[in-house]
């Protein structure tokens, strides 16, 4: 068993152990810590110089079906490695930040095993080097999400919300499946392995590329909440229990972006070029229209939900630019955004637990006086989310913008991509507006009389630790982006080459 297989299956084994009576919280934390350790070990042993785009490290493959060639195959390249690090960090923070067993109303086993299943689904999807398991592991997370929001979600509408997210994601997955099968058929349908697909990929005729890319863009787009397929996300994140919101918004949603970079762009470069303008229009919808919608939010949870959807626009911008620097920015932003939104949801959960509401008018402000640690950590998270220097988000967003302007060196005139970049810059202003306003309203206002009297506890040690873990990761990568970028370069350069060629 390779380290990668261990990382994918450790949460599943933990789920089995929990089903057979092992204490839920302890088992989940042990599995998450073991995964973090394994990921650390992998990072240390990961060679920076990778020769070709098809090469994967820690590869393993077990044949399941001879024809078509189907393998339970895992392995890592730079992109997968970064996303695996993201996943194990967020998973640990999510199970750590989950309420203690006594405070969960309902089936504790279900609560923790669902989180682990979602984590395992994300890890499997990021590590799979076989198209089939890439898709299949992502679906593994669907039903746990459905159950978690329906049972443990907050708010009156949680059942409706659970249905909405499930139907959206289910339909998105089916569209994606149709696209992937069409892709398989175009490549001869003999093998699911990424390596085999890359080998024959550039022979797909241009017309087929255009059609399939559009199907994949819609399918992945629904999963990533690309405008106008975003409407499931904000309410779902607002009402999901904290660990699900952290895992889903932080990690699982990155699957669609990862899929575009991993599958759609290298195999369908002409399709990507053809639909670039459409993607630019849609991503501006994410950044500008949904950014304004975010400003209008009155509740912290929906505000965070919309802001998470909005920030997807920047990642799409990096993807749409299609050059090395833009792609670097996109992947780094997936990492940075995943950590920062998970952090925000964890802290929002802590606020909800203390105040019983996340409505910013009812909260009344001044929380920082009662709970200084909570205020401080939330401040860090908000700054990271806006993209202040020092946080990974800043480095990533800068690279995305550079990526969108880089073609100007050759073309010497402003094209659609550059205009999109210019307009997107306004998104930074928008996110500063809503994030700072939320921070001021909740933490820095005058203390209401009611709250002044009420005994509001500050964050406990168990709550601080996961938040600190995430902030440290954000700042480390923020100050030294090269920590992660060096692993990305070989793979992304190869993809950028294939897009140019």
């Amino acid at each position, binding site marked *: 068993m390779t380290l990668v297989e261990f990382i994918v299956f450790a949460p599943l084994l933990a789920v089995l152990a929990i*089903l057979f009576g092992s204490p839920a919280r302890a088992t989940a934390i042990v599995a998450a810590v073991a995964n973090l350790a394994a990921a650390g070990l992998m990072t240390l042993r990961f060679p920076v110089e990778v020769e070709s785009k098809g090469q994967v490290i820690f590869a393993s493959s077990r044949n*399941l*079906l*001879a*024809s*078509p060639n*189907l393998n*339970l195959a895992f392995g890592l390249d730079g992109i997968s490695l970064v996303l695996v690090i993201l996943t194990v960090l967020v998973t640990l923070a999510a199970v750590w930040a989950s309420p203690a067993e006594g405070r969960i109303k*309902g*089936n504790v086993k*279900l609560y923790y095993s669902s989180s682990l299943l979602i984590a395992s689904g994300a890890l499997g999807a990021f590590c799979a080097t076989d198209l089939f398991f890439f*898709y*299949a*592991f992502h*679906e*593994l997370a*669907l*039903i746990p999400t*459905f*159950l978690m929001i*329906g*049972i443990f979600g907050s708010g009156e509408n949680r*059942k409706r919300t*659970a*249905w909405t997210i*499930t*139907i959206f994601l*289910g*339909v998105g997955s*089916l*569209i994606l*499946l*149709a696209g992937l*099968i*069409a892709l*398989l*058929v175009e490549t001869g*349908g*003999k093998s699911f392995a990424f390596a085999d697909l890359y080998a024959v990929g550039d022979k797909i005729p241009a017309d087929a590329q255009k059609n399939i890319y559009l199907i994949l863009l819609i399918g992945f787009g629904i999963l990533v909440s690309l405008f106008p397929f975003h409407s499931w996300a904000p309410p779902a994140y607002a009402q999901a229990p904290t660990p699900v919101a952290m895992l889903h918004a932080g990690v699982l949603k990155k699957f669609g972006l990862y899929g575009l970079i991993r599958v759609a762009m290298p195999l369908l470069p002409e399709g990507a070029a053809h639909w670039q303008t459409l993607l630019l229009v849609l991503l501006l919808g994410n950044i500008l229209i949904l950014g304004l919608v975010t400003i209008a939010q009155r509740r912290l949870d929906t505000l965070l939900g919309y802001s998470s959807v909005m920030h997807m626009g920047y990642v799409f911008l990096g993807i749409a630019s299609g050059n090395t620097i833009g792609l670097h920015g996109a992947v780094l932003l997936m990492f940075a955004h995943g950590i920062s939104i998970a952090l925000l949801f964890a802290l929002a959960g802590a606020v909800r637990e203390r105040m019983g509401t996340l409505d910013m008018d009812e909260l009344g402000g001044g929380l920082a006086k009662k709970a200084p640690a909570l205020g401080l950590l939330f401040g860090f998270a908000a700054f990271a989310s806006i993209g202040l220097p020092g946080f990974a988000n800043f480095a990533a967003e800068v690279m995305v913008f550079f990526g969108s302007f880089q073609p100007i060196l050759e073309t010497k005139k402003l094209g659609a991509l550059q205009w999109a970049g210019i307009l997107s810059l306004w998104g930074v202003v928008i996110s500063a507006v809503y994030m700072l306003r939320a921070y001021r309203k909740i933490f820095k206002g005058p203390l209401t009389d009611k709250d002044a009297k009420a005994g509001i506890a500050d964050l406990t040690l168990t709550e601080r630790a996961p938040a600190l873990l995430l902030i440290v990761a954000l700042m480390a990568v923020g100050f030294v982006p090269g920590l992660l970028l060096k692993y990305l370069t070989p793979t992304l350069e190869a993809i950028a080459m294939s897009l140019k060629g």
Partner: protein
Amino acid sequence: MPAYALEIIVFSLGLVLLLVDAFAKLEDKRSLAWLGMLGLVVVFGLLFKVEPRAADDANVFWRFYSDSRMSLFFKGIAILSTILVLAMAIDYRGLIEKFTAPAEKKAHPQAGLGEFFALPVFACAGLMCMASATNLVSIFVSLEAVTITFYVMVAYMRRNVGSLEAGVKYLILGALSTGFLVYGFAWLYGITGSMDLAEIGAALKSGDVSPTAALFAFSLILVALGFKVGAVPFQMWIPDVYQGAPTPITAFLSVGSKAAGFIVLLRLSAVFLGSEAVAGQVAMAFAVVAGLTLIVGNLTAIPQSNFKRLLAYSSIAHAGFLLTALAAAPRKLEAGQLSSATVVAFYLGAYLLMTLLAFLVVGLVRVHRDSEEIEAYRGLGKSSPFLALALLIAMASLAGVPLTAGFFGKFFVFQLAIQGGHWWLVTLAAIGAGAGFYYYLKVVAAMYWDDPTGAAAKAAAIPVSALTRAAVVTLIVLIVIAGFAPRMILGLIG
């Protein structure tokens, strides 16, 4: 041992059960079911010991009988489903006794129970014959052996109006489909001059046969088999019959009877699809029926509130996917491509696992909660977590969640349809699968989200016997293994 020995053994087993029931004064007739299961398990083992037909074997019997891997696979499906149906019947016996016990006080309460354990074994023998039938006569006889046994089994609870109504409906529509079938067979025989499928295929291929007459025979046969497998527009009996029949029999109907219908359809469609003159229209007819079945089955399942009825519509929906595989049958098989028959066989194998798992739980809930409404499943996640988990996995697999057996079934169907360029069928199948997510998850939501209401709120956990527990665990393990490694099943199909 030649393959046909198995049918002889199973048929004798049925007779033995009847005789034991008649002459041994059994105090507890459950032992009949145990005996039946034991015998069938032995036969299932013998299935792997079958010697293929010797090349010089001149036995005239082989003109009616095929022992291909595919036939053996379908025999396996028949035996496995019968074993599980008997296991379910043991749990369900209380209700059967309630509706069949003689009116006299002195009579043994289980006086009407014995045949309930023997009849499935006879049906199994018929299903196994059908899996091997390659001649119109043997197809007809084995099909009727199964159908007539099912008439009795569906109407078995003779003091329960629902069961009787279901029996009458099944009887009328079954007999109607028999009428179409034999009339179609008569025409097929008339225009080709043979009863043997290979000879009929050759005659159709030669082009000496009028295409109009061939299509007429085909449409009659399609109508008849459409009834058997529950294809739209011949599906209207399914919901009522499924709802009224005793639950183990419903499970048997939806698995065994459907599998048998499909193997006959596979054999006959291969004959027609082999002929240039009619292949186009035949494939078109399959595509239209498949599209209708996908849409009607999936969309009418959505508003159902009775779980058994929901499963009935879901069985129609799955027939739609299976028919899609038939409609997308590739004219010429490329290397490495799965044939439409393999896909259908795989799908049916997966369908067997997940449907029987669902019905095992339905039967238990019916016995202990006295209801089949989805309402009765509220709070099952708390009161009986084991059964709820089993049903969750069954529903996930039926919906086609990856890493379960059901996903690969759908996946292969989609692959065939896309390879064949049947884009509108793919679209309908995708809509159907999306609707499927909704109605299967509705049950999951009831189990886990809602608190129980009414009588269910006070009900204790449902007791699960060791046999049922073993059956449930086996099915779950098989579903997950087949979801990771479909080769296991594909290897058996050959």
